[in-house]
């Protein structure tokens, strides 16, 4: 909770003034029964009309001041709650951005997004409610009790019994029902999960003719959900009747005791009415308090979920050296590097050592899960090596200033992603100050010039969220162009031509080779044809390097490479010879 309260710090004034004004309003409300009592006793009892009018004016005045102070309170509460949520959202977003990728992989992006949105919304209304009611309701409850004592101590003893009894019942029911409602929520999540699963897997389900089984399964889950819901509802259905009984029996006792005191001549009729009024004020506030507690527990649950994220250690451990420049442009050295994604999990990479010189093209090939992507992700330090060292331009990546390191590197991911905006805006992610000419140059190299030209607006053509309005191949080529705009020293293409047909792929490779300057290029691929002209090819097998060499060397001496190559080329080579 402490982690969250920090965000309320800037709204200290509001968070204090809000409840204070609320208390002011409550105090006015507490005075009203006394005014009524004296109106009855003095005004009616003494047949004093002007006194009655005076009392009514006081009541109206109390109403007006109550209105003013409560509006003020609402304003401060809303301001503090909204401000808190805004600050928290900012803080959470910034924090999520600073998380290491392993931290993020562990959480899963979808939970992070719900925490960012709906959880914080719940928190906001929770804070708002707390500021408005958390002091007010207990204040009225105990205030009413104290006021009752000022009227008559003996009669007011009833309150001392009724209020704790009520609190026990109200809080008891809430405490019992909260875990039940959590169960209900989980049941609902399951129903939701099954429905979604059915939609995404509709083809498979129908292909196997499993519709009826799914309906059965759904029925079982909704049945279970309903049972839990009904049970939870049964418990909370007790709340209203039980509180009603307690309060009103308190009322009976109050009247009875009041009657005794009236008989003794200690109390007046008006005073008994005041006592009765206090009792009903308590009833109303307790109902509010119960609702408040439900909202607050919900908000607290959301709050702890948000706090969990904030508690995740931010980012990567820095050595604090913050180097910005190494020696050379684009040298990459791996020294006996090992890494694993989870502590205690299997190693994703083991004992990787190789060197890539400036301007070299390095191909990486290997089976699914052999560690190709893990290897290239170590270069921009998306993850940290567990053992060994990764060096760029002679400096350990851990010693770099992260921004400076990543500025050197252009990476194109397996999954091509673009962002909402225009094509030009997306390309300028690589370099904010790139000229249109530079953009077109990059597009040309990435084989994207043609289709961008065809788009209405060219560089200004809109891109929808995550690039939905573009085809897979178009997205891949644009994300390659985006990396090129950066004019990186090291360019990493992680299986980024998979959606391109062979002809385009070949043209792309040719254009990349003709790039001006010395760019070190890493190409991860499953197609031998994409790599065969690399200066060196790293063959990975199960996280280890099987062999490094040129196409020719590997074809002669590496069994795995041979297997891959011939599976893709054997027949065709023969045919080519035949055709020739």
């Amino acid at each position: 909770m402490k982690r969250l309260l920090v965000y309320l710090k800037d709204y200290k004034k509001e968070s204090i003034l809000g409840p204070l004004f609320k208390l002011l309003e409550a105090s006015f409300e507490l005075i009203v029964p006394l005014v009524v009592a004296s109106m009855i006793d003095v005004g009616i009892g003494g047949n004093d009309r002007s006194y009655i009018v005076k009392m009514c004016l006081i009541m109206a005045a109390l109403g007006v001041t109550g209105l003013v102070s409560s509006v003020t309170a609402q304003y401060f509460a809303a301001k503090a709650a909204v401000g808190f949520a805004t600050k928290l959202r900012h803080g959470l977003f910034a924090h999520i951005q600073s998380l290491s990728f392993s931290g993020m992989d562990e959480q899963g992006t979808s939970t992070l997004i719900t925490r960012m949105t709906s959880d914080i919304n719940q928190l906001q209304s929770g804070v708002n409610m707390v500021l408005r009611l958390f002091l007010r309701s207990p204040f009225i409850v105990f205030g009413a009790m104290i006021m009752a004592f000022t009227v008559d101590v003996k009669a007011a003893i009833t309150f001392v019994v009724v209020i704790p009894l009520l609190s026990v019942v109200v809080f008891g029911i809430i405490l019992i029902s909260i875990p039940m409602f959590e169960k209900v929520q989980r049941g609902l999540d399951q129903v939701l999960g099954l429905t979604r699963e059915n939609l995404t897997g509709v083809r498979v389900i129908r292909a196997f003719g499993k519709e009826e089984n799914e309906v059965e399964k759904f029925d079982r889950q909704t049945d279970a959900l309903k049972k839990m819901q009904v049970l939870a509802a049964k418990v909370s259905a007790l709340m209203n009747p039980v509180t009603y009984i307690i309060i009103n029996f308190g009322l009976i006792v109050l009247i009875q005791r009041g009657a005794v005191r009236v008989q003794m001549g200690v109390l007046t009729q008006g005073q008994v009415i005041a006592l009765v009024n206090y009792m009903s004020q308590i009833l109303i506030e307790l109902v509010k308090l119960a609702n408040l507690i439900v909202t607050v527990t919900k908000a607290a649950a959301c709050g702890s979920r948000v706090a969990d994220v904030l508690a995740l250690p931010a980012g990567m451990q820095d050595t604090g050296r913050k180097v910005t420049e190494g020696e050379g442009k684009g040298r990459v050295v791996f020294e006996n590097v090992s890494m694993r994604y989870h502590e205690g999990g299997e190693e994703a990479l083991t004992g990787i050592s190789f060197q890539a010189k400036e301007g070299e093209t390095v191909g990486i090939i290997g089976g699914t899960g052999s560690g190709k992507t893990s290897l290239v992700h170590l270069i921009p330090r998306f993850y940290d090596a567990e053992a060994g060292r990764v060096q760029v331009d002679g400096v350990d990546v851990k010693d770099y200033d992260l921004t400076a390191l990543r500025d050197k590197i252009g990476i194109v991911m397996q999954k091509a992603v673009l962002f909402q905006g225009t094509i030009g805006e997306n390309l300028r992610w690589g370099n904010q100050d790139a000229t249109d000419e530079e953009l077109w140059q990059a597009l040309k190299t990435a084989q994207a010039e043609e289709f961008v030209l065809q788009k209405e607006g060219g560089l200004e053509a809109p891109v929808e969220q995550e690039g939905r309005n573009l085809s897979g191949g178009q997205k891949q080529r644009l994300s390659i162009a985006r990396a090129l705009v950066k004019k990186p020293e090291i360019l990493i293409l992680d299986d980024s031509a998979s959606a391109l047909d062979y002809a385009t792929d070949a043209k792309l490779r040719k254009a990349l080779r003709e790039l001006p300057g010395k760019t070190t290029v890493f190409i991860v691929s499953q197609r031998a044809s994409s790599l065969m002209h690399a200066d060196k090819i790293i063959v990975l097998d199960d996280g280890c390097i099987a062999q490094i060499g040129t196409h020719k060397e590997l074809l002669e001496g590496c069994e795995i490479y041979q297997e891959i190559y011939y599976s893709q080329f054997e027949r065709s080579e023969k045919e080519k010879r035949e055709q020739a």
Partner: protein
Amino acid sequence: MKGKKEQQKDTLIKVLKYIKPYGVLMALTIVMALISVALTLYLPILTGQAVDMLAFPDKLFLEGGIWNILRKMAVVILLTAVAQWIMSLCTNQIVYNVIQDIRKKAFGKLQILPLKYMDAHSHGDIVSRVVADVDQFADGLLIGFTQLFTGVITIIGTLGFMLSVNVGITLVVVVITPVSLLVASFIARKTFRMFQLQSETRGEQTALVNEMIGNQKVVHAFNREDETLEKFDEINGRLEKCSLRAIFFSSLTNPCTRFVNSLVYTGVGLTGAFGVLGGGLSVGQLTCFLSYANQYTKPFNEISGVITELQNALACAARIFELIEEQPQAPDGERILTLSEVQGKVDLEHVAFSYVPDKKLIEDLNLHVKPGQRIAIVGPTGCGKTTMINLLMRFYDVDEGSIQVENTDIRHITRKSLRTAYGMVLQDTWLKRGTIRDNITVGKPDATQEEIVAAAKKSYAHSFIRRLPQGYDTVIGEDGGSLSQGQKQLLCITRVMLSLPPMLILDEATSSIDTRTEIRIQKAFAAMMEGRTSFIVAHRLSTIQNADVILVMKDGHIIEQGNHQELLAQKGFYAELYNSQFVLA
């Protein structure tokens, strides 16, 4: 287009149909509501009588004195509580049963809706209809209804009781209270736009968060953290402003109505007190009035809230009914055959199909597949390859012409027997929550452990499954959870390997598996395809070369058809596509 009012009426009628089975409970609810309202209103009168007794301290505890009244009060209180309790039990039963009924119906509907519907509607939207909308509908409508109902009776009842006690003061109450209703609805109307703006801004922010957090790696790779945060803050700032307005202005309702309330209270106090002096009223009746004045305004405030909630609920209901009433796929019909003894003869004759009427996709497609033949479908992305599969599996019906299996039009075959005759591995792998075993045995639930392991070995999935924490009993999350894309595909292949149907459909089934594993799978597939008709969609030419017939598709048309040699000889699109692989620039 029907008017909004009429639509709401239609929806309401449908809602009533769902409540009908619970008519008895509903009636009980109404009766209990009546009882509890009447008793609640009776209590202040008794209290008033008791207060009046206080004016005569001497007679207080005599026979027929205050004890009588107190006893009566106790009975009334107990009865009220019981009525309230029964009422909420009843509404709970109704609410949760109706929710369940509607959900079951909606889910059952999902199983028979044509795939067209699923493909055309966002899954998130459908899920929210089945889950969130149903909840909100039932909650809002039924609880809203009882609240509205008790609210109205309370108002009428209070009026009646008040009139029976004193007409003059009743008038004061009647004149002032509607003011609070007016105030509440005025505020609600004024703040509606503000809330709309708030939810729009929230939507904008969620979209941004989705996009950026979902693709954090790219954001980091390009060092765009600061710019992203800036963009986020810009929206966040706007959200703060409009949220504050919406929340503050809407929170005025409470103080304002409470103020009106206190005016009513004062008015009743003033006129009442004069009434007592004038002799038309007792002090007890005055207290009774004062507590009515408190109670009377409450239902007004509630009703104004309930009405918006009811409208909301009706809107939700309309969305659910839209789903439930969606046209289902044509039922299997009466003269229907069950496929058995499938050899694998498939014929397509003059098939025409399109997803949208004015955009022809497949026209006059003819294809005759002999049992055991291997058909490869190739072509650039978006050329209609998956459409072929949709038609073969009868996920979609052809517009013209016919598809026949074993010389029978597939529209005369039960969907289930047609589909189970095919083994299908799709590009989008799909796994359900459950154990690895559950996922493998989808097509053959009674498979033995030996059969499962044998199938997994054949598809090269055994070695990675064995290495999982609980082997075949490892539970995987929604959509495969932590498995890699390649592993997911291996599992899907194992699934087909186990059930071994007479025909196969492989849609880029090995796109995420490395070539080496693919070679092994290809071998396993080759063994599996032996004697089985297979349709293969693939990018890899090595897979295609062995096919008996290659269909080359472009823009929805089959432009070339033949085997590898024939097509190369044609020197057409296929030859160009094929040779481009070997342009070694």
